[in-house]
């Protein structure tokens, strides 16, 4: 086996040193009746070329070469090549959690830079070194808010990503947390009246998403006021992190749960992505996950360490703030490199392009016969909801024939939005693609898309 660095002679020498006759002697502690005598029934050993061919074949059975208008929690953004060139360095790729600070300064400093950039983007004071993803991050935020406030009721906007809400339900069910769901108004934003009525002095937190699942940007400041008036925390979940390039940061929130996949992370059929929690500094001791802090060594030189670990499971066991151990470190590094590449000016410019593409797409598609842009007057980033007289599935089938993947039908989660679908346009969508989709929606022959 080509990954194993031993010759038969090496093995024989080592067995002799150990003082056993055969390798099976080392497995004697396993009762004989449970020892396998034959081969596992899995495919036979393959060479590298065969493996590459097999995955090429799998890739070819996927939607290769299609124009796509899907978003909804997984965003198609260009990934600069520098990211993979750097994260594939073995010193980043094949290192463990940086517990031994003296030989982990590379990872630690990069995480410290990541934490800093997340704070700058979100308007929060501290950020952790990552969570699994946006959905589990939102659930952990709610549990954190319950610990901070010592309350056990949560108010959740129905415009939080439906899969985030499903994960939250799974996490909350054995925590004794009760939930009230608040719907949305005709503008696609959270129903402020219903929200005000839902928040009581038993409310631990209000969880919203902005831009929300419909792509509509919420009025975070106004929502924070309602929450804070009753002593509840406001958690803002952000699924489309690139929106922070041009949308006001949710500084009035107490906790921000960010899914940072948009920052240079491959869409990869849903993962691995990069959740991250940021919050006000006063909540630090209830924060789950790893934190990197600056300090000095014995000679007074600046260096970095994992810190405040008494919150974590390997010290606190059943009293820990979370059971999280392995996180998404390498993905956090990708996002850190991405933010460095685009930086202060580029993030703005890129976000503006997304805003422009989505605005053009919304206007163009919304103007086709039988189509109507919903929540048209609310501020949006790069997603919008289109209501059509034709069923979205039928429309999408026609788009697929032209090698285009249309918007995500919403009726499954929002039965009242029977013929609505959620569309996303990013810097990856050309004007030609948008015009072609509009032609299909209008029932016309779509101009052939040229991929160069």
């Amino acid at each position, binding site marked *: 086996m080509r990954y194993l*660095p031993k010759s038969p002679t090496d093995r024989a020498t080592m067995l002799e040193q150990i003082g056993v006759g055969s390798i099976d002697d080392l497995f004697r502690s396993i009762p004989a009746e449970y020892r396998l005598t034959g081969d596992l029934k899995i495919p036979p050993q393959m060479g590298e070329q065969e493996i590459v061919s097999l995955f090429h074949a799998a890739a070819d059975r996927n939607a290769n070469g299609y124009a796509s208008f899907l978003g909804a929690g997984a965003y198609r953004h260009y990934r600069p090549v520098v990211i993979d060139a750097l994260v594939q360095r073995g010193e980043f790729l094949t290192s463990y959690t940086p517990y031994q600070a003296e030989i982990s300064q590379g990872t630690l400093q990069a995480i410290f830079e990541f934490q800093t950039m997340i704070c700058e983007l979100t308007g929060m004071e501290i950020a952790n070194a990552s969570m699994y993803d946006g959905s589990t991050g939102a659930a952990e935020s709610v549990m954190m808010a319950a610990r901070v406030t010592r309350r056990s009721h949560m108010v959740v906007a129905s415009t939080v990503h439906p899969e985030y809400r499903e994960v939250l339900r799974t996490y909350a069910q054995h925590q004794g947390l009760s939930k009230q769901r608040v719907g949305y108004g005709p503008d696609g934003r959270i129903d402020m009246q219903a929200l005000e009525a839902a928040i009581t002095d038993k409310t631990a937190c209000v969880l919203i998403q902005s831009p929300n699942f419909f792509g509509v940007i919420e009025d975070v400041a106004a929502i924070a006021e309602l929450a804070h008036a009753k002593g509840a925390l406001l958690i803002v979940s952000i699924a489309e992190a690139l929106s922070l390039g041009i949308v006001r940061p949710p500084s009035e929130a107490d906790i921000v749960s960010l899914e940072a996949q948009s920052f240079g992370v491959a869409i990869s059929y849903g993962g691995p992505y990069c959740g991250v929690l940021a919050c006000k500094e006063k909540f630090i001791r209830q924060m789950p996950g790893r934190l990197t802090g600056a300090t000095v060594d014995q000679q007074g030189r600046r260096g970095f360490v994992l810190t405040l670990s008494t919150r974590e499971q390997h010290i606190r066991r059943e009293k820990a703030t979370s059971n999280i151990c*392995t996180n998404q470190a390498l*993905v956090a590094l990708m996002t850190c490199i991405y933010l460095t590449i685009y930086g202060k000016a580029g993030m703005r410019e890129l976000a503006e392009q997304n805003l422009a593409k989505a605005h053009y797409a919304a206007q163009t598609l919304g103007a086709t016969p039988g189509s109507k842009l919903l929540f048209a007057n609310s501020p949006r980033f790069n997603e919008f909801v289109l209501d059509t007289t034709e069923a979205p599935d039928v429309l999408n089938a026609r788009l697929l024939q032209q090698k285009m993947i249309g918007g995500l039908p919403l009726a499954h989660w929002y039965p009242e939005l029977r013929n609505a679908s959620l569309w996303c346009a990013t810097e990856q969508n050309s004007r030609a693609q948008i015009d072609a989709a509009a032609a299909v929606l209008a029932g016309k022959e779509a101009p052939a898309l040229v991929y160069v």
Partner: protein
Amino acid sequence: MATETVTPSNTTASEAKGSPFVGERSKVSSHISQNEGLIFEKSSPGKKAYRLAPLDVPAVNANALLGKQAREDLGLLPEVSEIEIIRHFTRLSTWNYAIDLGMYPLGSCTMKYNPRVNEMVARLEGIADAHPYQPESLSQGAMRVMWMLQECLKEITGMEAITLQPAAGAHGEFTGILLVRAYHESRGNPRKKILIPDSAHGTNPATAAICGYQVQNLKSNSDGMIDLAELEHLVDEETAALMLTNPSTIGVFESEIHKIADVLHSKGALLYMDGANMNALVGKTRPGDFGVDVMHLNLHKTFSTPHGGGGPGSGPVACKKILEPFLPTPVLVETPANTLTFNYDRPQTIGRVRMFYGNYGMFVRALAYILANGPDGLRQTTEDAVLNANYLRSKLEDVYELPYKTATLHEVVFSDRRQARNGVKTGDIAKRLIDYGFHPYTTSFPMIVPGALMIEPTESESKEELDQFVDAMRQIARETEENPEIILHAPHATRVSRMDEVAAARKPVLRWKPNASVSEAAASSENPPLVPATAAKEY
């Protein structure tokens, strides 16, 4: 470099006179590494590392579209050029130790080689670009990869059903214990407690707690194994499950595993297996055959997906038929037409534990690893992992105390008892190993071994690398006798020396701010430290 000079008792040609080593450092030489500040410290307005394609739609006025929701500026995000970014992160990378550089014997972490073909196939267009909501008809390749991995993992574990959704080991534990809970609830009583041996990983009790269970500790017997009498005494009708790591955290296979399962099953309780140590078992025995009802796997341990400085991982949960109805949605099913589809209609499901389908990129890598090995390769891998650990044990047991003499599989746990007489603790020996060119083993864990040195070499180490490790460990043992001071201040050969962790915790500096001095912040003290004196390190 070395900050103090000591008289070596036995210098060799390769070490300069005055070197702080008793013998030869055969694995490493010192070399220059580049200094590098924080990226923010290199930033200046106008530098760029990007160029966007021209906008092909009409430009928009952000303030007009967003109104008061428009952002004013992006604060301290850096402005640097591409070459500076390459140098910055490349320089940082050289400050890290890595499997690619050498042996990384962290016990319980299974730091094995991460094959490069895995990285390549995970980045193929069509896989890396697949959107989780693209139509199933256009996702059959992606779904087939999941299906193949599921089938392989079921066969490897001897289980009947599986979910790939959990994002890491602890997330798998969470999922597995929720399955246990749902099973008991379906029978009328969720039950109250989870039994956890005192040798268990910290994630186990933390998981039980977030699933709403009380944790009951189970004391190990004098062999470091489950005490059957104690188990029988504690298991009752309110016991939901035992969370068992097998082989245990001292590397010992629970020989009476079937009796353990019987005791649990006789009271209606289930056996959960923490699969952290599965690298000792693959191809040699199957948990499903020896009575385990549900378990998680760590694809980032046993199945070679990279640790990446702390993640991402992936923690599939495999289980017996009785738990299958409760698996998270969606569940992948094969249709009569041999196509794959996600089934969301699962009335007894515990619900989702993560959005979409899990850390998909890790599935691709793990499957590539399994295919590269085949059944014979996986078996040989396990045998080599066990061979390596036992080789180290036999080469070191005369100088380091072996608290449990029981036969061990893929890892060996020593204690620092002998060295501690000279004031040298496991954490000090670990730091000294760095000077010899190795990453430390896991320190101070498991807790049943005071001053533990937990060593897991994995199959990826050659005999030469192991011999160098043995040599380093034996030299350190000698130093303990002859010059303990040198160990207490190790490492000496690194860019930075031991960090002031107490200061870091007392006055946390968790982000960069212009003109803030770390040493000033670290020097002031307002709050009591959050670092316990003998904090267990990672495992």
